């Protein structure tokens, strides 16, 4: 069984990961985890031309490592098969695409990610993934 966990460096995403790790007995086989971090693309093509793609790639990489660091810390010493993926694009679409491409059985995500307004019922990314994903979504508050 393969689970995709969306990681954006937020508390909420970490709680989703922690939930899976704490409830592994729910799943029949030790689940394989795919951690996906989606970075929004740097706005204009002009910025890219100006800065050069190397600097931008470096920037993506740094942000990726930063977002993943707490998740990696949580996974340290755990006997899990984990792969991580960095995707540049629109979060909800990219998460769904990654889940279908990797043949994941389930998407796990927090309801309030990085850019969600605290007062809203749930973040826009979680809502879009739940609404559009052909793969069932487990949401953890």
């Amino acid at each position, binding site marked *: *069984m393969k689970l995709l966990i969306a990681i954006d460096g937020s508390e909420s995403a970490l709680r989703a990961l922690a*939930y899976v790790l704490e*409830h592994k*007995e*729910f*799943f*029949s086989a030790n689940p394989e985890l795919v951690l996906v971090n989606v970075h929004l693309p740097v706005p204009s093509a002009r910025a890219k031309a100006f800065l050069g793609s190397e600097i931008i790639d470096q920037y993506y990489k740094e942000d990726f490592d930063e977002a993943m660091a707490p998740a990696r810390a949580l996974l340290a010493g755990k006997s899990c098969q984990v792969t991580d993926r960095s995707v540049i694009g629109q979060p909800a679409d990219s998460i769904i695409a990654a889940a279908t491409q990797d043949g994941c*059985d*389930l998407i796990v995500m927090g*309801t309030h990610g990085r850019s969600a307004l605290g007062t809203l*019922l*749930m973040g826009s990314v*979680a*809502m*879009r993934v*739940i*609404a*559009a*994903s*052909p*793969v*069932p*979504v*487990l*949401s*953890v*508050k």
Partner: protein
Amino acid sequence: MKVLIAIDGSESALGALGYVLDHQDFFSTNPELVLINVHLPLPPPRANSLLGSETYAQIYKEESEEALAPARELLAGMPCRVVERQVVGQPAALIIAAATQEGCDLIVMGTHGRNALANLPMGSVAMGVIAASPVPVLSVKYESLATAALTQSGGQCKNIRASCQRIERMLQFTERLWVQGEQWNVNFNLAPTSHVQIDTGSWRSGSVGECGDARQAAIADHHDASGTPGCDHMAHFAARPVCQSRAGKNKNHALVCAKSTLHCTT
């Protein structure tokens, strides 16, 4: 493990239940199911005094029973421990309350229940539960259910017998969604292995002509399955039925109207 499933009589809710039944191998132990039906309170207290609370209770009971009936049918013969609850009040709040009171580990629900507007991303009850529940929520989108489950039943299965049972269950489930008088095209794409035979003789439908075509389509597919996209990696699959709705009909629903029996020959 205890799973609460919200049942409102909608296809979406049944889809969520079907998903759990179809993916029991996800769970380490056979999960215990709590089915809950929440009936909205009938409007004004004045009507209550006019009709009498007994009539009220009767209405609640009858409608809840009606909503739960297809779920019971789906569960018939399954080795599952099932508890049922019928309550009256605000759905989202009561679903969460029931899950916490019963000590459920998971809430499973469809994204579009009875009152949801089809073009909203999800219904208000699903949204309310996901947003407020301390218990994690697994949301299953109905339109994806039939295809996802069928792919699963053919694709991930190590054991042909289990695969057959799952396909059969899936057919039994989707069958109920067929409305008398409607015509469907049913296609089965079979892998070029002969482990599984579909006994087409037991198909039933109100529209014989259509089903006759589907039967031929199934046989044709069986012969040229090697040319079907996606069949190259089906060598170890037992069968992969692909159900498609009638062209022009709601494309969101992948349904079958046929009853089919699968036999293992190995």
